[in-house]
């Protein structure tokens, strides 16, 4: 049973990353109509940002949790201003191709300087060690990642669904021209939205640094799984992305325990099944 709980925890952690990344993808897709292929590369940049802060400037985990998403978010906003904004009005696929190119550039540059092996990033002192819960041993850092990700996800949901800013954002998704007529600066909002989505990816990167090590390709394979998560959940609903992300992580964890050979593929197989039964995705609108 110990092993089962351990795998469940691993599943919850992966689910946190799926949720944070697919949430960002959904928010970006809503505003920019772009599937951000660079999301995995920006997640990796978040982790590297934390690594640089620690090793070059001596800035630890806690400040990095705030600084890295902001730095990477600004990088994302520069990308949006200099490149992505020129694609509005074109076929969606050009956004995919452009961000794929950006992902290749970012990952290639990091691979040149850091190879493909992982760089260690220590768990902060406050979160070291573990707790004995009676039925299992819980490493505190892992518990922290799950709880903190959940809070960030719910805060994002609240921001978009319940605040005035979020209402403007949702309105601009539906009809940007009309919203501009109300005097709201939609292009600036688009840039900020991209920054927010990218910042969430970078935050996931920082959270994963102590667990998965810091590697140039850490986001490359992850983003494909997240795409499958997005296809399963649909991008129509924020809460849908969060729930789908966490549940698929848990299912993957369970698979690791009961049938480890299929743990790499289970999310993709589920995607196929969902497409056969309900092609629009579990929560999605027809696109």
């Amino acid at each position, binding site marked *: 049973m110990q092993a089962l709980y351990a795998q469940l925890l691993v599943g919850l952690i992966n689910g946190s990353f799926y949720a944070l990344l697919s949430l960002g993808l959904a928010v970006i*897709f809503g505003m920019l109509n772009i*599937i951000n292929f660079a999301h995995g590369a920006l997640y990796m940049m978040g982790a590297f940002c934390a690594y640089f802060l620690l090793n070059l400037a001596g800035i630890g985990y806690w400040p990095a949790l705030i600084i890295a998403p902001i730095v990477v978010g600004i990088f994302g906003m520069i990308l949006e201003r200099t*490149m992505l904004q*020129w*694609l509005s*009005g*074109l*076929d*969606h*696929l*050009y956004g*995919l*191709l*452009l961000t*794929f*190119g*950006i*992902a*290749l*550039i*970012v*990952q*290639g*540059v990091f*691979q*040149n300087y850091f190879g493909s092996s992982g760089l260690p990033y220590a768990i902060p002192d406050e979160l070291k060690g573990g707790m004995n819960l009676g039925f299992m041993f819980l490493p505190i850092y892992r518990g922290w990642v799950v709880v903190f990700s959940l809070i960030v996800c719910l805060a994002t949901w609240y921001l978009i669904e319940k605040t005035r800013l979020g209402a403007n954002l949702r309105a601009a998704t539906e009809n940007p021209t009309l919203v501009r007529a109300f005097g709201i600066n939609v292009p600036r909002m688009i840039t900020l939205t991209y920054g927010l989505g990218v910042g969430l990816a970078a935050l996931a990167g920082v959270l994963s640094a102590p667990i998965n090590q810091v590697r140039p390709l850490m986001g490359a*394979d992850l983003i*494909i*799984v997240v*795409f*499958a998560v*997005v*296809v399963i959940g649909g991008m129509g609903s924020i809460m849908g992305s969060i729930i789908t992300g966490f549940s698929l992580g848990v299912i993957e964890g369970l698979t690791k325990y009961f049938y480890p*050979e299929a743990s*790499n*593929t289970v999310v*993709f*197989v589920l*995607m*196929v099944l969902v*497409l*056969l039964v309900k*092609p629009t995705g579990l929560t999605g609108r027809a*696109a």
Partner: protein
Amino acid sequence: MSALTDDTLPVSPRAVRDEMIVFVLMAALLAIVPLTGIYPFFVMQALCFALLACAFNLLIGYGGLLSFGHAMFLGTAGYFTAHALKVWGLSPELGILVGTLGAAGLGVITGVVAIRRQGIYFSMITLALSQLLYFIYLQTPFTHGEDGIQGIPQGYLFGIFNLAKPTVLYYVILVGFLGGFLLIYRTINSPFGEVLKAIRENEPRAISLGYKTDHYKLVAFILSGTIAGFAGSLKVFVAQNASLTDVHWTMSGEIVLMTLVGGLGTVFGPVVGAFVIIAMQQYLAGFGQWVTVIQGVIFVACVLTFRRGVIGEIAHFFRRSL
């Protein structure tokens, strides 16, 4: 969805004549390659990728479907052909048949799933399916995992042509490429191709005219996958191995890049694009990971400033369809 197609001129007798002239020129140029002393291995490899990119272009250029998983056909056909030649000891023509049929079967299975969604979702689904296949090939014994299938015997095609001789192999590959190319060309100019273009332009209208668009898309997907698989089977004879590289998503990305550079939705663009990208990889092989960075830069540059691609720009300049 019209961004791709602004410059596509309607098919006219003049366009067909232009295209046939260029085709004959291309075939003649390729036929004299062995006499020029150009390294035939490079051209053979480029021809296989050119056919692969043409098959991919059939989907994106004429059906409006961007597949981000076309490497799965390349890799699957490669593994099947390699296995048939090496383990079963089949003759080359049967090996090619096994590989191509394998890719066709894969096209049926993945096509049924992938065409359930359009646009951007289609791309994500094909990418996820190819990644699923990648993990399957990583684990099944017959692919030999990370090592791949190596030292594949080339044998005698139809019992006559010795494929171990570079010149003979070159002409076999060339004939295969030209045959596949003509099949695709015939398809896009057939009534079937016209319906496909109609679906790309306006799917609801095509449905309202009574076309079962899902059937057309599925057939196009299977055809594209089968021809891509044929290219993958041919490539086995050139490279004499089949490995996981051919199934990886980076390979799918390269196929997209070749077609983009040459020109999406142009007849000859994918061929030019394949030669450009393969040549670039050949000459920049010493730069390691910078090749990836350069590919990324080409992607970005093409999307931002050069969306028509090489052939698309030429065709636009001369107001012709190529």
